[in-house]
């Protein structure tokens, strides 16, 4: 195991690296699914891998899990590498695949009991069911579960061996907001127990809320890495002022306002990025006073988000 300092500052914590990935490459035909990826994950971190569909998240994840072979590069998990120590690694990690992959004719309890029996170390079915709030559905055949319940059962399987690292591949995709928040609580609880969580998602909000550190990947490459705050701060000095206007002003006149660096007009919706919020706001309000069509609606100031970071780095929205 490798020891290193996370923050090169006054409070240098000694941290244990549980996952180390170096120069990973994987191609499928002409497609470079993973194009030279390296990173390290420390114990107890919630580490996010963020990117649009097809960016290479799942391929990278499955290589680390030992389900796929890379073309080149090395992976170390808990100080071991796949191949010789594959079974030992699998005993200590929990995996949730993107597809729920449940045995359709077994009920929730039976599925968990079956998977639990594969591990030397395990926690009780009851406890896991409670953690993912499936206790009431424990006798339901998995084919009769709702999409959200299937997803939660799939996460429950990943927790049944009380893993040191849990790999969750887009666990909240397709869930309604309520179910998504329930799963966030499960992940937060894992973090509180000192477990390491490897999370892939294409929801920026999710990554911002849950992740200690994350990498943004696009076309198989890491295009940015750091904590959500760092990522936003390093890419944006500005905050965004958003409002609606029946007849928005010309972009030119917006850019002429003090502090404004960028502006975007989408129909009646206007976003203005500003380094000097008070000055820009003053100018905007002045303009609104002279407007005869009802002035500003829904005015708010918000921080730049990871969504803005992704937009800035790739020129695309993440879910396009």
């Amino acid at each position, binding site marked *: 195991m490798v020891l290193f300092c996370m923050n090169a500052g006054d409070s240098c914590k000694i941290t244990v690296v549980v996952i180390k990935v170096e120069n990973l490459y994987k191609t499928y035909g002409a497609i470079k699914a993973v194009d030279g990826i390296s990173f390290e994950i420390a114990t107890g971190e919630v580490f996010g891998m963020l990117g649009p569909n097809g960016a290479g998240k799942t391929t990278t994840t499955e290589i680390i*899990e*030992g*389900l796929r072979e890379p073309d080149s590069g090395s992976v170390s998990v808990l100080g071991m590498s796949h191949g010789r120590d594959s*079974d030992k690694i*699998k*005993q200590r990690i929990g*995996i949730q*695949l993107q*597809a729920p*992959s*449940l*045995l*359709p*004719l*077994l009920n929730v309890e*039976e599925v968990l*009991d*079956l*998977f639990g*029996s*594969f*591990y030397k170390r395990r926690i009780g079915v009851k406890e896991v069911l409670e953690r993912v709030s499936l206790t009431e559905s424990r006798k339901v*055949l998995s084919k009769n579960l709702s999409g959200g319940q299937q997803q939660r059962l799939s996460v429950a*399987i990943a927790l049944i061996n009380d893993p040191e690292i849990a790999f969750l591949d887009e666990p909240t995709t397709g869930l309604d907001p309520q179910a998504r928040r329930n799963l966030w609580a499960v992940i937060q609880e894992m973090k509180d127990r000192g477990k390491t969580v490897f999370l892939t998602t294409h929801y920026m909000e999710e990554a911002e809320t849950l992740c200690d550190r994350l990498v943004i990947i696009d076309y198989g490459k890491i295009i940015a890495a750091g904590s959500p705050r760092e990522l936003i701060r390093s890419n944006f000095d500005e905050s965004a002022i958003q409002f609606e206007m029946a007849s928005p002003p010309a972009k030119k006149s917006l850019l002429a306002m003090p502090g404004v660096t960028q502006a975007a007009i989408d129909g009646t919706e206007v976003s203005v990025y500003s380094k000097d919020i008070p000055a820009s706001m003053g100018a905007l309000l002045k303009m609104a006073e002279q407007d005869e069509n009802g002035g500003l609606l829904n005015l708010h100031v918000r921080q730049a988000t990871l969504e803005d970071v992704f937009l800035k780095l790739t020129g695309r929205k993440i879910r396009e």
Partner: protein
Amino acid sequence: MKTFFKLFIANTRQFFRDRMALGFTFAFPVVFMVIFGLVFSGADEFQYDVGLSSQDSTQTGVAVAEAFKQIPIFSVTEGELENQLEELKKGSFRAVLYIPEGLVETIARGEAVDIKLYYDPSQTTSIQIIQPVVREFVNSINQMLTQQPALVRLQEESIQLKELGNIDYLVPGVIAMSIMFLGLFSGLPLIQQREKKILKRLGATPIHRVNIIYSQVFLRLLLALAQTAIIIAIAYFLFDVAILGNWLMLLALILLGTLTFVGLGYMVAAFARTEEGAMPVIQLIQFPMLFLSGIFFPVEFLPDFMKPILNALPLSYLGDGLRQVMVEASPVFSLSTDFLVLGGWLLASLIISIRFFRWE
């Protein structure tokens, strides 16, 4: 071992919750057996409807008519010749026997009596049976009337311990068919689990994936035994088919046959990506086998150019072996050949399956 056992329990649960598979495995052979039994088990008492028109009302004439009515395979209706012939044309009778009047007088004059048998030549199969019976009947009347003792008699003795009826021939056939279905379809759960990424999910745990296969094969073997037991029970209790052979040999054949066809089923799973893709392949394998393997009718009926096909099909050997062991039917192949060929097919399908099977 624990993994194998847990997977076996899981497979068994899933199997019994899948009504389709359950019906296919148990209801189908039972229905098949009952229908076959009802159609064919009465074969011994099967009777041909035959018309009789006797013009001779003397004591001798009545005695001859009565003797004719006693022939067990005929159900005799008496009537006027013209009406009887009309019925024969309509198909109500297979044949009509005509006894002219004046039997005793004609014989006394030293002339031969002409007893006539009318039949419809298009009814070839029934005529082939009726003709010799009537001929034999006429011979014995001759002997009775001339009172000459028979000098040479034919004593018939079957070399089989028990005479085989159609049903006896069919029971091993139904068992062979059920084993073939059970085996060929055993690849489907695997294809399903691969399609739904369940195999991939199981592969992400520390278990050895071959346990998945072992546990499924084990379940299939148990199902084959249960299936066979049910079929034999129906045959025995409902249709009076006795099982004569060696039970251990029967067990060995059923297990080997199941393994062979499971092997073929897995071979299908190795090549077909989806369930929909597998179904036509399975049908392509099973239908020729059903009709060309001789499990439901003796192979002598097959034209010669088809014999090589029969000799290549594993079902031919399973059917032949089961018939030999269960009802001591005369062998088409030797029993050791049956075992060897089944074993050969098993080995071949295993090698191909292992070479081409993909977990994902």
